[in-house]
């Protein structure tokens, strides 16, 4: 288990669980951040936060605080 917020740039993982306050969680779900989705850490903003990830084929930006709600596991090769 690794939180999305702890990813380093270029790392990939599969989402296992999404937690957090209902509003944030719902928003994450609506944007396709759901269990089973593959997520790739693209980059960090110049000041280190927010981060940009590739998910379901598009670019999504979210803060570290929100990325903390996302648990992931490694992809089995």
């Amino acid at each position, binding site marked *: 288990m690794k939180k999305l917020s702890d990813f380093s740039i270029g790392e990939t993982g599969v989402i296992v669980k999404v937690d957090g306050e209902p509003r944030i*969680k*719902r928003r994450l779900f609506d944007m396709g951040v759901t269990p089973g989705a593959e997520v790739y850490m693209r980059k960090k903003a*110049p000041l280190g*936060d927010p981060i*940009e990830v590739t998910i379901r*084929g598009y*670019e999504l930006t979210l*803060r570290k605080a*929100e990325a903390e709600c996302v648990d992931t596991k490694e992809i089995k090769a």
Partner: protein
Amino acid sequence: MKRFALAGNPNCGKTTLFNCLTGSTAHVGNWPGVTVDKREGTYKKCAEPISIIDLPGIYSLSPYTPEEVISRNYILDEKPDCVINIVDATNLERNLYLTTQIMEMDVPMVIALNMMDMVEKQGDKIDEKELERRLGIPVVKISALKGTGLTELMEKAFETSSKERKGKTVLEGCEIYHLISDVRIALDGQNVANPLFHAIKLVENDEIEVQMHSTTIKMVDEFKQSFNNELFGTDFEALVADARYKYISKNYSPLMTKKEKGVKLSKSDKADKVLTNKWAGIPIFIVILFAIFHLTFSEDLFYLGSIFSLPTLEDLGVAENFGTALLACFYDGAIFSPGVILFNLMDLITSTVFGWITAGLESLGAAEWALSLIGDGILGGLGGVLSFVPQIIVLLLFLSILEDTGYMARVAFILDRIFRRFGVSGRAFIPMIMGFGCSIPAMVNTRTLADERERTLTLRTIPFFSCGAKLPILTAVAGAVAHILGAGDGSIISFLMYVVGMAVAIVSIILMRSTTQRGEVSPFIMELPAYHAPSFKGLMIHLWDKTKHYVKKVFTIILASTILVWFLSNFNWSWAMTGDINDSILASLGQFVQPLFTPLGFGSQLNAQGWVFVVAAVTGLIAKEEVIATFGTLAAIFATAAPEIAVEGATDVMTMVLGTGITWPALIAFIIFNMTTIPCFAAVAAAKGETPKGKFKWTLLFWVATSYIVSAISYTAITMFASWSLWSILATLGIIIVSVVAVLLIRNYNKKHPVKGVK
């Protein structure tokens, strides 16, 4: 007339499609949330004319942002004859997520698979026939940008609109489907329309539905007690969202075959690497912002004139004729920026044409009052405003390019960290920067912010981002200040004024966040669209859309109020024309409120004619361009005109400076007052529409108070630095002490009373 609604994700090409179908010129941008209200147009190429409604872009039909509620209610309550669901084919999964929700409503529906040109260019393929079969909804491939597949789409939609469709769901395999099914039957029994949709939302514990069906929700609550999912517990909202995506990735996603991509970066990725680079990102943003202002306002392009000390036309000894005047629009001791060149050309045209008109009237032997009305009143006022139109267009052009290319969304990404510190998310920066163009669309755009407090905060500070119409005030007054100080053309002062406006915005956000609008910064979860080169047509539509607004204003409200100001300043209370302005109706009205502005430097300390500044500021409420138009009208009344200053409008201001004895710090305070006070009526109306009930009057009060306090402080502080007088030192000390005490008191209070109900 049949009505078709366009629904889809933000930035999926809805507005482009809308423009193609209706021939309308709605504004298209490349960042999520351009359309924040629904818009209507007509499609005429079908068997009968069809009304097309462009709904705001949404990711889901959940009730969390106002635009989601607008779209949802439109489909449910207004019952369009067909919903055209636009799906961005380059981003299939997330777009189909919304499709699976719209599908659940009992409404005829067609899917427009958009951006097919992009998909094909990338070498990818989509089996749209199989997708159509699996969804059970007609699918038409289109490219809104290239205009392909549109006729077919509309024919299909027209055909579909006459057939009834019952809601369908992809949740049938889901473990809570029998609950959904039971609730649907219960709602159907109560004759609720769209029972399936409402049943699912009710199961999701959607706040709007729970209020609407307070009895049926008990069914769900009872069920929950005997249910437990190991992953989601009884969080059905999460469970449903998850089930939708699972279904999509299992059944629909495989229909897209992607060409194996190498490690090669796309152009968009390459651009992004530079623009959001860890080290270069922020400096690039600052350079871009500076370049925009430089290209719009600078009278010394790239500082070439100063660097090479280029000669002025006078030095070169060029003869004075029309050709020279034309040349002087481009070069005079320095090469001008594109904005200034256009401005000069427009000014040359208006002053030449207006000169002919006045000369023509004189030769016809027109009455003196008519000459005064047309020459001083109408032409003087309009000329000042019209000359600024090209410069406003240049500024808008640059802002439009930022929007269309997708850079604006990156700016939010880059700056979020900084803005969060002040109490708003990086997203709030988009409406703020739009405010440099015009406050009205900027205010409407605050709807894309999810948090109500953040919306209020952002909306209140938008006027501080000085809009295009305030530009003439800045240029003219700053030009006069620079003339008094003998320092350049005032463009540095103008730039500083923009900075002051932004600083006021930041300070007031911090203040409101710690007093009336307390709470945490809202989440920042946003799509970053791929960059694309702006299309020429798109840019022109965009520009025209914004410019026509200004031009229309010049010939309607500004023309009317210029005449009114002329009348009030030339007639006295006995309705007779008066030669002495101090006898006029306007003078007595102005003198009545003038003392109020004493702390700001343009009140009682001025001589008998000092009311002109107060009057100009008040006319600014009609439209901000009006301030300078009023100057144009009023300056004609002063006996002695100031010597010509190269900066447009500055001569009029100088005439008034000489006539009233106003000091330059007071002129600066005057700019700041106009920049931060209540915006024009049109923007006030927009603000009223966007603020929650009961907050509007506070918003107005906030603007009045902010402008008054900030201008008073600026006046006092600058005067103090200009000449150290005891009174100004005491006043400044007083202000500092009061602010420190206030900050301490607020901090203390906030510590003792943490915010309730806001996480």
